């Protein structure tokens, strides 16, 4: 309830704000929304201005107000939609408590339409004229593309193409069947006199006009289908059948509509065989042309994203702009725009996801969903608003009821017949209940309405009747069928989409099945779809990926690796969450617990590190230990023990030691980069501190027991793992590359691999601690007293010193760990936890040599 209230409050605030702002801007349209809305608004405002200019001058003020309220309502409405889909609060505040239940029973689309009724009623009450209707231009050019692009971009490609045959049959033949049967039956009924009961007397509709009407009613509407089926999680195959059909039948609808439109204007007698053949040809041109345009743009997007390594910030823009362009281009060439944008999305999705930065991918995903959601909302609301209009309501009981009946019945007949044929060829036949849902899911929506409004009133006298009937059918299907869909699915016990948990073995076996099936098909001399798929995959991997993907992305495209990566990520996240739940993440950052643990069981912690590394980078270290394991629980036991004491100390230490930069943060603003504002020096310093920790723990281990080689390597792993984050590690590496000169070789003689590690990391090249064996004396160069005094002064300018060398321990560290302070360990967060053996060792060491010049000290 609190959240609810908050959302409401916020909404009201925004509405008020907009209301306040808008008058200030005068006639300017509120610019909060996307361009399409703006355009729609401006077109509306034009209309309304025209409409009122002929009237008295007083009225425009009222309409102007309403215009603003309407706009802000829409904005608010949109926001609600974003805000947990609280639709009812605005429409009906008393029902706030109930809204969860309401949305779970009534699909959102239905609610939105109802809300549209209310809004429309308000406008009507104020205006007495319906000012806002969903005009076809706005709908087709500004609202529809986003929804369809989203659908295409998130299309499960494999599923789609596996069922492509069935989808196409339903989309093409099914739609034609719907159109023809509806048109012919209505015409037959009129001939038979069933339409006689009309208030306007006889209907003036010919056969061609009936067919035209049938063709606009025939198409299942993608927007409505998405809206309804999104909430009813039916199984994948069923979903893709309905959804794919609704997307692909657009080509058919456009052609049918255009052809019949042309026929109507030609008039009956002039139609000959040539015209009909032309119509059929145009179907292929429109459908395939549209798809090709889409594919072309999809490839273009993929190519572009391949080259945007340095301008990642604009990557997401490409997809939207080019996707929209593909829609417009197809529309311009009078090809099927929906097919075009669907194929554009489907074609580019794989490459885009592989090429783009993870952030951009997320951005695209969310932006697309947001746009699609917004458009969908507006579409449905406008559908509702459009209802409140006196002009279009031409009631003809016979016509309307018959249309409804035929739409429903013929859909059922068509689906059952086509599925019956298809099932003879399908590996997994569609079951009876599936077919029922498919038929019942034949929702008509805004596309039909848009087409109906596009009808030419001069040619078709009963346009308003058709619009009205279309609206009724839309309401009936979206609201009634939408509401009953869920209960029906439950009642028929339709197989629901299973929540799948990925497992590696499963994926592996699936992959193996695919290979096996291809082999078996080959052996049995059959070119089935497995065979085709494998050929396509081969082609795709060798050519398309090569052209369209970044070289770096090409390597990791195997799904198995993907799953592996996901699982590892999940593990790591669980691990961290678990740590957080127990109150501290020290065990993650605090290297000591690992070190302690390492001493207990080296190999195990070793494994942990391997796992962690593979989590982060997907790069496995070259280990000698045969199989690294992924069991992350190992840490937890250690953590418990150390935590209590550490918590206090670590807190204190962190307080003292966190990098206190002087106010040097440059607040960079860059249009093309979205970097975290990070001072380079800070990175350096953090890096050096971390390095120092490594060294220290390493030597401590060294001085205890002679460590086996794995530990040495482990240190190297740790380094990578323990860097503040993956990126900074890379940065550090590169930024230090200059230092990597020949000096590194001077630190010779010790363990090769360790040398390499530290050398690469670039820190402490002159550091004597590198050669603890050769020069143990150097370990204790700074006497405590000296260290203290010096450090006091150094406290102030840590960042400055960071350029010269590492900062030293502040004085109060001594209090915490007096012994350590005297040695070279200075900035470790975890100082006091270093094992006892080490302390003993340092105790026994000879007195320190005189302090060195400060520059060297820095490296100590």
């Amino acid at each position: 309830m609190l959240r609810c209230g908050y959302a409401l409050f916020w909404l009201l605030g925004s509405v008020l704000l907009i209301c306040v702002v808008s008058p200030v801007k005068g006639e300017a349209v509120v610019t909060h929304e996307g361009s399409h809305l703006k355009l729609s608004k401006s077109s509306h405002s034009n209309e309304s201005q025209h409409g009122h200019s002929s009237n008295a001058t007083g009225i425009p003020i009222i309409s102007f107000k309403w215009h603003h309220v309407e706009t802000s309502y829409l904005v608010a409405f949109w926001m609600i939609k974003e805000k947990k889909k609280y639709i009812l609060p605005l429409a009906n505040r008393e029902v706030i408590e109930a809204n969860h239940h309401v949305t779970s029973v009534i699909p959102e689309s239905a609610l939105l339409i109802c809300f549209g009724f209310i809004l429309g009623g308000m406008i009507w009450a104020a205006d007495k004229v319906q000012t806002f209707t969903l005009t076809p231009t706005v709908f087709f050019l500004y609202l529809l593309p986003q929804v369809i692009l989203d659908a295409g971009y998130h299309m499960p490609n494999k599923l789609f193409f596996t069922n492509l045959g069935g989808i196409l049959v339903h989309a093409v033949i099914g739609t034609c069947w719907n159109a023809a049967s509806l048109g012919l039956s209505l015409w037959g009924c009129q001939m038979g006199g069933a339409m006689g009961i009309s208030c306007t007397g006889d209907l003036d509709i010919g056969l061609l006009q009936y067919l035209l009407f049938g063709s606009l009613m025939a198409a299942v509407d993608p927007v409505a289908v998405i809206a309804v089926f999104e909430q009813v999680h039916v199984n994948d195959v069923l979903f893709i059948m309905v959804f794919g059909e609704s997307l692909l039948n657009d080509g058919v609808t456009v052609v049918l509509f255009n052809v019949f439109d042309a026929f109507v204007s030609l008039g009956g007698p002039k139609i000959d065989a040539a015209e009909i053949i032309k119509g059929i040809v145009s179907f292929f041109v429109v459908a395939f042309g549209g798809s090709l345009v889409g594919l072309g743009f999809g490839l273009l997007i993929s190519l572009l994203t391949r080259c945007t390594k340095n301008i990642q910030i604009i990557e997401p823009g490409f997809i939207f702009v080019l996707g929209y362009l593909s829609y417009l281009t197809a529309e311009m060439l009078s090809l099927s725009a929906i097919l075009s944008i669907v194929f554009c999305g489907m074609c580019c999705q794989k490459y885009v996801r592989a090429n783009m930065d993870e952030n951009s991918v997320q951005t695209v995903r969310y932006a697309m969903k947001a746009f699609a959601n917004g458009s969908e909302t507006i579409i449905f609301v406008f559908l509702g608003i459009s209802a409140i209009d006196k002009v279009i309501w031409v009631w003809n009981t016979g016509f309307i009821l018959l249309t409804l009946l035929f739409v429903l019945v013929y859909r059922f007949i068509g689906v059952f017949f086509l599925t019956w044929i298809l099932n003879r060829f399908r590996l997994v036949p569609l079951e009876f209940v599936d077919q029922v849902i498919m038929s019942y899911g034949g929702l008509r929506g805004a596309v039909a309405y848009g087409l109906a409004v596009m009808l030419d009133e001069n040619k078709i006298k009963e346009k308003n009747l058709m619009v009205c009937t279309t609206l009724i059918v839309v309401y009936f299907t979206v609201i009634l069928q939408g509401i009953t869909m869920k209960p029906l699915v439950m009642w028929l016990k339709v197989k629901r989409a299973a929540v799948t948990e990925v497992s590696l073995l499963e994926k592996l076996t699936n992959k193996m099945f695919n290979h096996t099936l291809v082999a078996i098909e080959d052996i049995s001399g059959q070119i089935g779809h497995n065979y085709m798929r494998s050929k396509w995959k081969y082609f795709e991997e060798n050519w398309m990926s090569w052209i369209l993907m970044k070289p770096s992305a090409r390597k990791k495209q195997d799904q198995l690796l993907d799953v592996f990566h996901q699982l590892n990520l999940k593990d790591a996240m669980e691990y961290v969450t678990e740590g957080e739940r127990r109150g501290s993440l020290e065990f993650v950052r605090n290297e000591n617990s690992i070190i302690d643990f390492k001493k207990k069981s080296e190999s195990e912690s070793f494994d942990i590190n391997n796992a962690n590394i593979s989590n982060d980078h997907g790069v496995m270290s070259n280990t000698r230990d045969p199989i690294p394991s992924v069991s992350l629980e190992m840490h937890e036991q250690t953590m418990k023990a150390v935590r209590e004491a550490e918590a206090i100390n670590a807190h204190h230490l962190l307080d003292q030691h966190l990098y206190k930069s002087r106010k040097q943060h440059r607040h960079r603003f860059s249009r093309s980069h979205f970097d975290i504002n990070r001072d380079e020096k800070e990175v350096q310093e953090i890096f050096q501190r971390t390095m120092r920790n490594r060294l220290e723990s390493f030597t401590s281990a060294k001085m205890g027991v002679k460590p086996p080689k794995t530990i040495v390597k482990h240190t190297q792993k740790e380094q990578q793992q323990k860097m503040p984050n993956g990126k900074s590690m890379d940065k550090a590496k590169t930024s230090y590359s200059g230092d990597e000169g020949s000096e590194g070789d001077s630190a010779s003689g010790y363990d090769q691999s360790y040398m390499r590690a530290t050398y690469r990391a670039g820190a402490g090249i002159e550091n004597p601690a590198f050669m603890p064996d050769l020069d143990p004396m150097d370990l204790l160069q700074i006497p405590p007293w000296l260290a203290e005094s010096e450090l006091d002064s150094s406290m102030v300018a840590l960042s400055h010193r960071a350029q010269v060398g590492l900062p030293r321990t502040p004085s109060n560290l001594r209090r915490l760990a007096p012994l350590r302070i005297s040695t070279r360990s200075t900035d470790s967060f975890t100082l006091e936890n270093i094992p006892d053996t080490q302390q003993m060792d340092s105790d026994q060491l000879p007195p320190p040599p005189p302090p060195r010049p400060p520059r060297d000290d820095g490296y100590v």
Partner: protein
Amino acid sequence: MGSSSSSRNKIPNAQELMDQTGFSSAHLLRLYDRFECLDRDNRGYLRQDTVDFSSFVRILAHFRPTDRNRNKEGTQQELPNSRTRKLKFAFQLYDLDRDGKISREELLQVLRAMLGLQVTEEQLQSIAERAIQEADLDKDDAISFDEFKKSLEKVDIDTKMSIGFLK
């Protein structure tokens, strides 16, 4: 029908094979043609004399889609396209040394063959390790058939290991 039954006669133990595999005689004929086509030397065996026609058919029978109606009649023996048999078949693809367990080495070998050069050896190893961990219930570091079956419980084997034409 005459020609088909006469050509059926040239197939050795046709009736027995049909009973065992659930193939119809038309299927068997087609397979026989294919077999003869593959068997270029006309020796009656494929692959260095290890696969004769009946084993050829029996292997392919694993990939016949399950038909719901027929299985309910309660055939006395389990047809090769039952779920368990299909799983067994898949299991044997992993189990290279036929000891009833998928060891890590075997899994690695399969992985190597499938993922090829895309992945480093270490990644392969950790994938194999992870896969074994997922399925290995009795912690013997290998996957037995029961464990295999259990871990693939959710997979729709009937569809995934079926080929349309053999229906």
